[in-house]
């Protein structure tokens, strides 16, 4: 059987195995833009509000990761 070895855009997965946490950023940004586009009365305020909520999503996720990492580190020592 012949399998194509070259990377095919949109068919093969991207080689992101070592960088997958960075994929959180565009997702958080996209969710923020859509959410704030629905919430804000004026679309002029969307960029600023979406940037703010993106920051808070990322901050929350990083905080949660740090807390979980700390718990795992403590449990692993015990």
């Amino acid at each position, binding site marked *: *059987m*012949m*399998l194509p070895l070259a990377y*095919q*855009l*949109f*068919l*093969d*997965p*991207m080689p*992101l*195995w070592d960088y*997958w946490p960075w*994929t959180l950023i*565009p*997702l958080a940004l*996209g*969710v923020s*833009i*859509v*959410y704030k*586009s*629905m919430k804000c009365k004026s*679309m002029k305020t*969307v960029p600023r509000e979406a940037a703010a909520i993106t920051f808070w999503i990322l901050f929350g996720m990083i905080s949660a990761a740090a807390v979980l990492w700390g718990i795992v580190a403590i449990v692993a020592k015990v």
Partner: protein
Amino acid sequence: MRGAMWGDWRDLLRIAVRIEYPALMSQTSQNFFASGPLVALCGWLVPGSGYWLIGEKIRGAVVGLTILAIFLGGILIAGIRVVDVPGFDNLGRASYVRLEQDSQGHVRENKSLQPDKESSGGWQPIGAWHWTLRAHPFPDIAEKPWFVGQILAGPICLVAASKSVEVAHPVSPDETISATPSSHARIFEIGTLYTAVAGMLNLLAIIDSAYRAGQGAGQ
């Protein structure tokens, strides 16, 4: 006296510049002409078009393009096979079921990827072959619940599903390896997350635009 009068005019002019006159009807969302269900249907067909119908074109464009970008981002990250279609196996083959009965009256449901194949062991068919997704859709969809989120992104998901099934087929019929294997582990999860979140966001947009249409948009 004359100087004071010019000063008053300047003040009035400054105030007039600050006044924000209401936009024309054609420039606002007041010119909507669609009912809630129509807005919801269009919102599913083309993400963001529900807002477009009620006159909120910028909002519609931003929401629609962002949702499509997230969905395509998921496919870009994890490959087209991230759209995992219920009713098909890992090699893109449709699965079928039919009821069969043996000589003692026991009834079973036979599942097969080849509906032309004859039953063995004394089982006789008592019904026709049906595609599993049609025979019992809920258990089939429950096996791949992320597809529910993905399908909410609109017909783009159906196109992606068709392509996913197409490229899943083996190069030759006797092979057991897909021509385009699906991704695994984190990459598959992230792709699934992207595509399903895009669909869920579109559901929010559909509800919001239909609600605005029902409320008389922009009020």
